[in-house]
Protein backbone atom coordinates (compact mmCIF):
# COMPACT_ATOMS: atom_id res chain seq x y z
CA UNK A 1 0.00 0.00 0.00
CA UNK A 2 1.19 3.46 -0.87
CA UNK A 3 0.20 7.00 0.08
CA UNK A 4 0.56 10.00 -2.22
CA UNK A 5 0.41 13.39 -0.52
CA UNK A 6 -0.31 16.71 -2.21
CA UNK A 7 1.97 18.60 0.19
CA UNK A 8 1.35 21.90 -1.63
CA UNK A 9 -2.20 21.85 -0.36
CA UNK A 10 -1.33 20.73 3.18
CA UNK A 11 -2.68 23.37 5.59
CA UNK A 12 -0.86 22.15 8.69
CA UNK A 13 -3.80 20.70 10.63
CA UNK A 14 -1.38 17.85 11.47
CA UNK A 15 -4.30 15.49 12.06
CA UNK A 16 -2.57 12.74 10.05
CA UNK A 17 0.36 12.99 12.44
CA UNK A 18 -1.86 13.08 15.55
CA UNK A 19 -3.95 10.09 14.45
CA UNK A 20 -1.49 8.03 12.37
CA UNK A 21 1.71 8.82 14.26
CA UNK A 22 4.98 10.56 13.44
CA UNK A 23 6.57 7.44 11.90
CA UNK A 24 4.09 7.35 9.05
CA UNK A 25 3.34 11.08 8.90
CA UNK A 26 6.46 13.12 9.76
CA UNK A 27 6.08 16.90 9.96
CA UNK A 28 8.57 19.59 9.00
CA UNK A 29 9.66 22.37 11.38
CA UNK A 30 6.64 24.45 10.37
CA UNK A 31 4.31 21.64 11.39
CA UNK A 32 3.28 20.77 7.82
CA UNK A 33 3.59 17.34 6.21
CA UNK A 34 7.23 16.52 5.51
CA UNK A 35 6.76 13.88 2.77
CA UNK A 36 4.99 13.57 -0.58
CA UNK A 37 4.71 9.79 -0.71
CA UNK A 38 4.95 6.83 1.58
CA UNK A 39 5.32 3.08 1.11
CA UNK A 40 3.29 1.85 4.02
CA UNK A 41 5.23 -0.79 5.99
CA UNK A 42 3.41 -4.13 6.18
CA UNK A 43 1.12 -4.29 9.20
CA UNK A 44 0.70 -0.49 9.34
CA UNK A 45 -2.08 -0.29 6.74
CA UNK A 46 -4.93 0.36 9.19
CA UNK A 47 -3.03 3.15 10.92
CA UNK A 48 -2.07 4.70 7.58
CA UNK A 49 -5.69 4.58 6.48
CA UNK A 50 -6.83 6.32 9.67
CA UNK A 51 -4.17 8.99 9.33
CA UNK A 52 -5.09 9.62 5.70
CA UNK A 53 -8.79 9.80 6.54
CA UNK A 54 -8.13 12.37 9.29
CA UNK A 55 -7.03 15.07 6.83
CA UNK A 56 -9.66 17.84 6.59
CA UNK A 57 -8.03 19.12 3.38
CA UNK A 58 -8.11 15.61 1.82
CA UNK A 59 -4.63 15.82 0.37
CA UNK A 60 -3.67 12.22 1.15
CA UNK A 61 -4.55 9.60 -1.47
CA UNK A 62 -4.28 5.86 -0.84
CA UNK A 63 -2.98 3.72 -3.71
CA UNK A 64 -2.85 -0.07 -3.96
CA UNK A 65 -4.88 -0.66 -0.83
CA UNK A 66 -5.05 -4.46 -0.45
CA UNK A 67 -8.31 -4.15 1.54
CA UNK A 68 -9.99 -1.62 -0.72
CA UNK A 69 -13.40 -2.60 -1.99
CA UNK A 70 -13.94 -3.31 -5.70
Amino acid sequence: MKLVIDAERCAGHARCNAVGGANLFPLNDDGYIGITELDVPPGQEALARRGARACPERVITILDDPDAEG
Partner: protein
Amino acid sequence: MSEQASHTYAPPPAGLPGLSSERKIPTHVPEGLVFDPPFEVANALTDPFSLNKKTYEELPPVFWWPRARPGRFDGTWVVTHYDDIRNVYQKEELYSTEGTANFQSLVGETWPMLPIAVDPPEHGKYRILLNPWFSPKAVAAMETNIRTTINDLIDGFQDKGEVDVAYDFGRVYPVRVFLDLMGFPQEKLDEFLDWGYSILHSRYKIEKIQYGVSSALVFLRDFIAKARENPVEGLASYIVHGKIEGRALTDDEVIGMVFFLWVAGLDTVAANTTLMMRRLALEPEIQATLRAKPELIPDAVEEFLRVQPVVNSSRLVKEDHEVRGVQIKKGDHILCYNIAGNFDDEEFDNPWELRFDRPSNRHFSLAGGPHRCLGSHLARRELRIALGEFLRRIPTFSLKPGVDHTVTPGLVATPHLHLVWDPKQKP
Protein backbone atom coordinates in the same frame (compact mmCIF):
# COMPACT_ATOMS: atom_id res chain seq x y z
CA MET B 1 -33.87 15.87 29.45
CA SER B 2 -37.06 17.24 27.92
CA GLU B 3 -36.07 20.60 26.62
CA GLN B 4 -37.82 22.11 23.70
CA ALA B 5 -35.77 24.14 21.27
CA SER B 6 -37.83 26.41 19.16
CA HIS B 7 -37.05 28.99 16.58
CA THR B 8 -38.97 30.41 13.68
CA TYR B 9 -37.37 29.82 10.32
CA ALA B 10 -39.30 32.47 8.49
CA PRO B 11 -37.74 35.41 6.70
CA PRO B 12 -37.22 38.27 9.16
CA PRO B 13 -40.23 40.58 9.40
CA ALA B 14 -39.86 44.05 7.94
CA GLY B 15 -38.76 46.75 10.34
CA LEU B 16 -36.57 44.53 12.53
CA PRO B 17 -33.94 46.55 14.36
CA GLY B 18 -30.74 46.54 12.38
CA LEU B 19 -32.49 46.24 9.03
CA SER B 20 -32.15 49.90 8.26
CA SER B 21 -32.68 51.31 4.79
CA GLU B 22 -28.92 51.22 4.09
CA ARG B 23 -29.03 47.48 4.63
CA LYS B 24 -31.42 46.66 1.86
CA ILE B 25 -31.12 43.15 0.57
CA PRO B 26 -29.14 43.33 -2.72
CA THR B 27 -31.19 42.90 -5.89
CA HIS B 28 -29.33 39.75 -6.98
CA VAL B 29 -30.54 37.91 -3.87
CA PRO B 30 -33.70 35.91 -4.68
CA GLU B 31 -36.55 36.65 -2.28
CA GLY B 32 -37.00 33.01 -1.32
CA LEU B 33 -33.40 32.71 -0.12
CA VAL B 34 -33.60 35.20 2.75
CA PHE B 35 -33.59 33.61 6.21
CA ASP B 36 -32.73 34.50 9.77
CA PRO B 37 -31.01 31.52 11.41
CA PRO B 38 -30.74 31.30 15.23
CA PHE B 39 -27.13 32.48 15.26
CA GLU B 40 -25.73 33.07 18.77
CA VAL B 41 -29.13 33.01 20.45
CA ALA B 42 -28.71 32.76 24.23
CA ASN B 43 -30.36 29.63 25.64
CA ALA B 44 -30.19 27.17 28.53
CA LEU B 45 -30.27 23.91 26.54
CA THR B 46 -27.91 21.04 27.43
CA ASP B 47 -26.50 21.42 23.92
CA PRO B 48 -26.85 25.15 23.28
CA PHE B 49 -25.84 24.66 19.63
CA SER B 50 -28.83 22.40 18.95
CA LEU B 51 -30.95 25.47 18.20
CA ASN B 52 -29.26 25.32 14.80
CA LYS B 53 -30.34 21.76 14.06
CA LYS B 54 -32.94 22.88 11.61
CA THR B 55 -30.63 25.34 9.87
CA TYR B 56 -28.90 22.43 8.15
CA GLU B 57 -31.98 20.25 7.81
CA GLU B 58 -34.61 22.74 6.68
CA LEU B 59 -33.00 25.83 5.16
CA PRO B 60 -31.52 25.90 1.64
CA PRO B 61 -27.79 25.01 1.64
CA VAL B 62 -27.00 28.53 0.44
CA PHE B 63 -29.09 31.39 1.79
CA TRP B 64 -28.90 35.12 2.48
CA TRP B 65 -28.87 36.22 6.09
CA PRO B 66 -29.66 39.90 6.55
CA ARG B 67 -27.96 39.71 9.97
CA ALA B 68 -31.02 41.07 11.64
CA ARG B 69 -29.22 41.86 14.87
CA PRO B 70 -29.00 45.35 16.29
CA GLY B 71 -25.72 46.98 15.39
CA ARG B 72 -24.36 44.03 13.44
CA PHE B 73 -22.78 44.31 9.98
CA ASP B 74 -24.48 44.02 6.62
CA GLY B 75 -26.04 40.91 5.24
CA THR B 76 -24.11 37.86 4.12
CA TRP B 77 -24.45 34.63 2.21
CA VAL B 78 -24.36 31.57 4.43
CA VAL B 79 -23.23 28.08 3.37
CA THR B 80 -24.36 25.31 5.70
CA HIS B 81 -23.08 22.13 4.06
CA TYR B 82 -19.73 20.64 4.94
CA ASP B 83 -18.42 20.33 1.36
CA ASP B 84 -19.37 23.91 0.49
CA ILE B 85 -17.67 25.19 3.64
CA ARG B 86 -14.50 23.29 2.76
CA ASN B 87 -14.64 24.79 -0.71
CA VAL B 88 -14.79 28.35 0.68
CA TYR B 89 -11.87 27.75 3.04
CA GLN B 90 -9.74 26.13 0.34
CA LYS B 91 -10.37 28.41 -2.66
CA GLU B 92 -8.41 31.51 -1.74
CA GLU B 93 -8.58 32.68 -5.38
CA LEU B 94 -12.35 33.16 -4.95
CA TYR B 95 -12.66 34.04 -1.27
CA SER B 96 -10.62 36.70 0.54
CA THR B 97 -10.03 37.30 4.25
CA GLU B 98 -9.60 41.06 3.74
CA GLY B 99 -11.00 43.05 6.66
CA THR B 100 -11.23 40.06 9.04
CA ALA B 101 -11.18 40.73 12.82
CA ASN B 102 -11.07 44.48 12.32
CA PHE B 103 -11.20 45.56 16.00
CA GLN B 104 -8.37 48.04 15.49
CA SER B 105 -10.50 50.12 13.09
CA LEU B 106 -12.67 51.08 16.09
CA VAL B 107 -9.87 53.30 17.32
CA GLY B 108 -8.99 54.66 13.87
CA GLU B 109 -6.09 52.31 13.09
CA THR B 110 -5.71 51.36 9.44
CA TRP B 111 -3.15 48.52 9.47
CA PRO B 112 -4.44 45.01 8.77
CA MET B 113 -4.49 42.12 11.22
CA LEU B 114 -1.65 39.79 10.23
CA PRO B 115 -1.46 37.23 8.84
CA ILE B 116 -5.24 36.66 8.78
CA ALA B 117 -6.38 39.68 6.77
CA VAL B 118 -4.10 39.23 3.75
CA ASP B 119 -4.52 36.69 0.97
CA PRO B 120 -1.96 34.28 -0.48
CA PRO B 121 0.72 34.66 -1.72
CA GLU B 122 1.33 37.71 0.60
CA HIS B 123 -0.19 35.74 3.48
CA GLY B 124 2.44 33.01 3.30
CA LYS B 125 5.30 35.47 3.84
CA TYR B 126 3.96 36.38 7.27
CA ARG B 127 2.75 32.92 8.08
CA ILE B 128 6.16 31.24 7.63
CA LEU B 129 7.58 33.64 10.19
CA LEU B 130 5.08 32.44 12.81
CA ASN B 131 4.56 28.76 11.90
CA PRO B 132 7.62 27.39 13.77
CA TRP B 133 6.28 28.94 17.01
CA PHE B 134 2.92 27.20 16.70
CA SER B 135 3.85 23.79 15.23
CA PRO B 136 2.80 20.68 17.18
CA LYS B 137 6.46 20.27 18.22
CA ALA B 138 6.82 23.86 19.46
CA VAL B 139 3.56 23.60 21.36
CA ALA B 140 4.58 20.25 22.89
CA ALA B 141 7.56 22.08 24.42
CA MET B 142 5.06 24.33 26.26
CA GLU B 143 3.33 21.36 27.92
CA THR B 144 4.97 21.71 31.35
CA ASN B 145 4.33 25.43 31.49
CA ILE B 146 0.67 25.05 30.53
CA ARG B 147 0.19 22.22 33.04
CA THR B 148 1.74 24.30 35.85
CA THR B 149 -0.36 27.34 34.95
CA ILE B 150 -3.56 25.30 35.03
CA ASN B 151 -2.69 23.52 38.28
CA ASP B 152 -1.86 26.83 39.98
CA LEU B 153 -5.37 27.99 39.20
CA ILE B 154 -6.95 24.73 40.38
CA ASP B 155 -4.94 25.02 43.64
CA GLY B 156 -6.89 28.21 44.31
CA PHE B 157 -10.36 26.63 44.24
CA GLN B 158 -10.01 22.84 44.65
CA ASP B 159 -10.81 22.88 48.39
CA LYS B 160 -13.60 25.43 48.12
CA GLY B 161 -15.97 23.11 46.30
CA GLU B 162 -16.93 25.89 43.95
CA VAL B 163 -15.58 27.92 41.02
CA ASP B 164 -16.82 30.35 38.42
CA VAL B 165 -15.28 28.24 35.67
CA ALA B 166 -15.82 30.91 32.99
CA TYR B 167 -14.44 33.89 34.91
CA ASP B 168 -11.81 32.38 37.19
CA PHE B 169 -10.54 29.54 35.00
CA GLY B 170 -11.37 29.61 31.26
CA ARG B 171 -10.84 33.38 31.07
CA VAL B 172 -7.52 33.30 32.89
CA TYR B 173 -5.30 30.40 31.89
CA PRO B 174 -5.09 31.11 28.12
CA VAL B 175 -3.96 34.68 28.90
CA ARG B 176 -1.29 33.44 31.33
CA VAL B 177 -0.01 31.04 28.65
CA PHE B 178 -0.13 33.85 26.08
CA LEU B 179 1.92 36.22 28.27
CA ASP B 180 4.64 33.58 28.66
CA LEU B 181 4.64 32.75 24.96
CA MET B 182 4.94 36.40 23.93
CA GLY B 183 7.51 37.26 26.60
CA PHE B 184 5.20 39.73 28.35
CA PRO B 185 5.49 40.02 32.14
CA GLN B 186 2.95 38.02 34.19
CA GLU B 187 2.43 41.19 36.26
CA LYS B 188 0.40 42.48 33.30
CA LEU B 189 -2.14 39.65 33.74
CA ASP B 190 -4.88 41.72 35.42
CA GLU B 191 -4.58 44.49 32.88
CA PHE B 192 -4.69 42.07 29.95
CA LEU B 193 -7.73 40.38 31.45
CA ASP B 194 -9.41 43.75 31.90
CA TRP B 195 -8.69 44.85 28.32
CA GLY B 196 -9.83 41.51 26.90
CA TYR B 197 -12.99 41.52 28.97
CA SER B 198 -13.77 45.07 27.85
CA ILE B 199 -13.46 44.06 24.20
CA LEU B 200 -15.46 40.87 24.45
CA HIS B 201 -18.15 41.50 27.02
CA SER B 202 -19.16 45.07 26.34
CA ARG B 203 -22.05 44.22 24.05
CA TYR B 204 -22.69 47.38 22.11
CA LYS B 205 -20.90 49.79 24.43
CA ILE B 206 -18.42 50.99 21.87
CA GLU B 207 -16.46 53.17 24.35
CA LYS B 208 -15.63 50.12 26.47
CA ILE B 209 -14.37 48.24 23.42
CA GLN B 210 -12.32 51.25 22.34
CA TYR B 211 -10.84 51.45 25.84
CA GLY B 212 -9.78 47.78 25.66
CA VAL B 213 -8.26 48.09 22.20
CA SER B 214 -6.42 51.36 22.78
CA SER B 215 -5.07 50.33 26.20
CA ALA B 216 -3.67 47.13 24.71
CA LEU B 217 -2.15 49.06 21.81
CA VAL B 218 -0.41 51.52 24.17
CA PHE B 219 1.21 48.64 26.04
CA LEU B 220 2.13 46.75 22.87
CA ARG B 221 3.68 49.79 21.17
CA ASP B 222 5.75 50.54 24.26
CA PHE B 223 6.91 46.92 24.50
CA ILE B 224 7.77 46.85 20.79
CA ALA B 225 9.81 50.08 21.02
CA LYS B 226 11.82 48.70 23.95
CA ALA B 227 12.34 45.33 22.27
CA ARG B 228 13.68 47.09 19.17
CA GLU B 229 16.45 48.55 21.36
CA ASN B 230 16.96 45.50 23.54
CA PRO B 231 15.79 42.14 22.19
CA VAL B 232 14.22 39.89 24.85
CA GLU B 233 12.97 36.29 25.03
CA GLY B 234 9.61 35.44 23.52
CA LEU B 235 7.56 35.69 20.36
CA ALA B 236 6.85 39.44 20.51
CA SER B 237 10.52 40.39 20.43
CA TYR B 238 11.13 37.72 17.76
CA ILE B 239 8.48 39.39 15.57
CA VAL B 240 10.01 42.83 16.20
CA HIS B 241 13.30 41.52 14.81
CA GLY B 242 11.68 39.28 12.20
CA LYS B 243 12.33 39.58 8.49
CA ILE B 244 10.21 38.79 5.48
CA GLU B 245 11.94 38.37 2.14
CA GLY B 246 15.13 39.76 3.64
CA ARG B 247 13.66 43.05 4.91
CA ALA B 248 12.75 44.11 8.43
CA LEU B 249 9.07 44.37 9.36
CA THR B 250 7.46 47.81 9.54
CA ASP B 251 5.94 49.06 12.80
CA ASP B 252 2.46 48.50 11.37
CA GLU B 253 3.30 44.92 10.43
CA VAL B 254 4.68 44.22 13.89
CA ILE B 255 1.66 45.67 15.68
CA GLY B 256 -0.70 43.93 13.21
CA MET B 257 0.80 40.56 14.11
CA VAL B 258 1.24 41.03 17.84
CA PHE B 259 -2.22 42.54 18.33
CA PHE B 260 -3.86 39.85 16.22
CA LEU B 261 -2.18 37.04 18.16
CA TRP B 262 -3.62 38.50 21.36
CA VAL B 263 -7.16 38.95 20.02
CA ALA B 264 -7.17 35.50 18.38
CA GLY B 265 -6.07 33.60 21.45
CA LEU B 266 -8.17 35.48 23.94
CA ASP B 267 -11.71 34.28 23.66
CA THR B 268 -11.66 31.09 21.62
CA VAL B 269 -10.07 28.81 24.20
CA ALA B 270 -12.01 30.50 27.01
CA ALA B 271 -15.37 29.91 25.30
CA ASN B 272 -14.48 26.32 24.42
CA THR B 273 -13.39 25.59 27.99
CA THR B 274 -16.55 27.03 29.50
CA LEU B 275 -18.89 25.26 27.08
CA MET B 276 -17.05 21.96 27.57
CA MET B 277 -17.23 22.16 31.38
CA ARG B 278 -20.89 23.14 31.20
CA ARG B 279 -21.71 20.08 29.11
CA LEU B 280 -19.81 17.85 31.55
CA ALA B 281 -21.63 19.42 34.50
CA LEU B 282 -25.02 18.81 32.89
CA GLU B 283 -24.13 15.26 31.82
CA PRO B 284 -22.13 13.63 34.65
CA GLU B 285 -22.04 10.35 32.74
CA ILE B 286 -19.58 11.99 30.32
CA GLN B 287 -17.40 12.94 33.29
CA ALA B 288 -17.53 9.29 34.45
CA THR B 289 -16.50 8.03 31.01
CA LEU B 290 -13.51 10.37 30.81
CA ARG B 291 -12.46 9.74 34.43
CA ALA B 292 -12.49 6.00 33.75
CA LYS B 293 -10.65 6.37 30.43
CA PRO B 294 -8.50 9.51 30.41
CA GLU B 295 -6.84 8.22 27.23
CA LEU B 296 -10.05 9.32 25.46
CA ILE B 297 -9.36 12.97 26.27
CA PRO B 298 -7.67 13.91 22.95
CA ASP B 299 -10.61 12.45 20.99
CA ALA B 300 -13.03 14.09 23.44
CA VAL B 301 -11.45 17.50 22.84
CA GLU B 302 -11.74 16.93 19.09
CA GLU B 303 -15.41 16.04 19.47
CA PHE B 304 -16.09 19.03 21.73
CA LEU B 305 -14.43 21.24 19.12
CA ARG B 306 -16.78 19.76 16.51
CA VAL B 307 -20.03 20.12 18.47
CA GLN B 308 -19.27 23.58 19.86
CA PRO B 309 -17.76 25.57 16.99
CA VAL B 310 -17.31 29.05 18.41
CA VAL B 311 -15.97 30.58 15.19
CA ASN B 312 -17.79 30.77 11.86
CA SER B 313 -15.35 32.36 9.44
CA SER B 314 -16.46 34.92 6.91
CA ARG B 315 -14.89 35.60 3.51
CA LEU B 316 -15.16 38.42 0.99
CA VAL B 317 -16.12 37.22 -2.50
CA LYS B 318 -13.51 38.19 -5.13
CA GLU B 319 -15.34 37.24 -8.34
CA ASP B 320 -18.91 36.67 -9.53
CA HIS B 321 -19.68 32.95 -9.48
CA GLU B 322 -22.37 30.42 -8.59
CA VAL B 323 -22.64 28.18 -5.56
CA ARG B 324 -25.19 25.37 -6.04
CA GLY B 325 -26.78 27.43 -8.79
CA VAL B 326 -27.08 30.58 -6.65
CA GLN B 327 -25.54 33.75 -8.10
CA ILE B 328 -22.88 35.17 -5.76
CA LYS B 329 -21.41 38.59 -6.62
CA LYS B 330 -17.99 40.10 -6.14
CA GLY B 331 -18.05 42.16 -2.93
CA ASP B 332 -20.63 39.94 -1.17
CA HIS B 333 -19.65 38.25 2.06
CA ILE B 334 -20.01 34.52 2.59
CA LEU B 335 -20.14 32.88 6.00
CA CYS B 336 -18.89 29.34 6.66
CA TYR B 337 -21.62 28.20 9.00
CA ASN B 338 -19.69 25.61 10.99
CA ILE B 339 -22.58 25.36 13.43
CA ALA B 340 -24.46 23.60 10.61
CA GLY B 341 -21.58 22.12 8.57
CA ASN B 342 -20.11 20.31 11.58
CA PHE B 343 -23.48 18.51 11.81
CA ASP B 344 -23.74 17.57 8.12
CA ASP B 345 -24.82 13.91 8.10
CA GLU B 346 -23.09 13.34 4.75
CA GLU B 347 -19.80 13.81 6.62
CA PHE B 348 -20.62 12.79 10.20
CA ASP B 349 -22.73 9.77 11.23
CA ASN B 350 -25.39 10.71 13.78
CA PRO B 351 -23.99 14.24 13.87
CA TRP B 352 -25.93 15.41 16.95
CA GLU B 353 -24.57 12.60 19.07
CA LEU B 354 -21.51 13.36 21.22
CA ARG B 355 -19.15 10.46 20.45
CA PHE B 356 -15.50 10.03 21.34
CA ASP B 357 -14.90 7.14 18.92
CA ARG B 358 -15.59 8.70 15.53
CA PRO B 359 -13.60 6.96 12.77
CA SER B 360 -12.63 10.42 11.54
CA ASN B 361 -13.47 13.91 12.75
CA ARG B 362 -12.59 16.38 10.02
CA HIS B 363 -14.50 19.34 11.45
CA PHE B 364 -13.67 22.90 10.43
CA SER B 365 -14.01 24.55 13.84
CA LEU B 366 -10.41 25.73 13.44
CA ALA B 367 -11.04 26.73 9.82
CA GLY B 368 -9.12 25.24 6.89
CA GLY B 369 -7.12 26.04 3.80
CA PRO B 370 -4.25 28.54 3.98
CA HIS B 371 -5.83 30.37 6.94
CA ARG B 372 -6.18 27.27 9.12
CA CYS B 373 -6.05 28.54 12.71
CA LEU B 374 -2.39 29.24 13.46
CA GLY B 375 -2.97 28.55 17.15
CA SER B 376 -4.90 25.32 16.58
CA HIS B 377 -2.25 23.08 18.12
CA LEU B 378 -1.86 25.36 21.12
CA ALA B 379 -5.64 25.52 21.58
CA ARG B 380 -5.95 21.73 21.42
CA ARG B 381 -3.16 21.24 23.95
CA GLU B 382 -4.60 23.84 26.32
CA LEU B 383 -8.05 22.23 26.16
CA ARG B 384 -6.62 18.73 26.66
CA ILE B 385 -4.60 19.76 29.69
CA ALA B 386 -7.43 21.84 31.16
CA LEU B 387 -9.90 18.97 30.80
CA GLY B 388 -7.45 16.33 32.01
CA GLU B 389 -6.26 18.24 35.09
CA PHE B 390 -9.75 19.39 36.02
CA LEU B 391 -11.07 15.81 35.97
CA ARG B 392 -7.98 14.50 37.77
CA ARG B 393 -8.28 16.96 40.65
CA ILE B 394 -11.96 17.89 40.94
CA PRO B 395 -14.56 15.25 41.87
CA THR B 396 -17.92 14.95 40.11
CA PHE B 397 -19.14 18.50 39.59
CA SER B 398 -22.45 20.04 38.63
CA LEU B 399 -23.92 23.47 37.99
CA LYS B 400 -24.52 25.50 41.14
CA PRO B 401 -28.24 25.17 41.94
CA GLY B 402 -30.27 28.28 41.29
CA VAL B 403 -27.61 29.99 39.20
CA ASP B 404 -28.47 30.93 35.64
CA HIS B 405 -26.71 28.66 33.15
CA THR B 406 -27.83 30.41 30.01
CA VAL B 407 -25.04 30.62 27.43
CA THR B 408 -24.65 32.06 23.98
CA PRO B 409 -23.43 29.35 21.62
CA GLY B 410 -20.44 31.24 20.24
CA LEU B 411 -17.27 33.14 20.87
CA VAL B 412 -18.59 35.06 23.86
CA ALA B 413 -20.31 32.11 25.51
CA THR B 414 -20.95 33.60 28.94
CA PRO B 415 -19.02 35.73 31.42
CA HIS B 416 -19.94 33.50 34.40
CA LEU B 417 -20.64 29.82 35.00
CA HIS B 418 -20.66 28.51 38.58
CA LEU B 419 -19.74 24.87 39.22
CA VAL B 420 -19.96 23.06 42.57
CA TRP B 421 -18.63 19.76 43.99
CA ASP B 422 -18.07 18.08 47.32
CA PRO B 423 -14.47 18.88 48.32
CA LYS B 424 -14.45 15.89 50.70
CA GLN B 425 -15.06 13.54 47.80
CA LYS B 426 -12.15 12.03 45.88
CA PRO B 427 -12.03 12.63 42.13
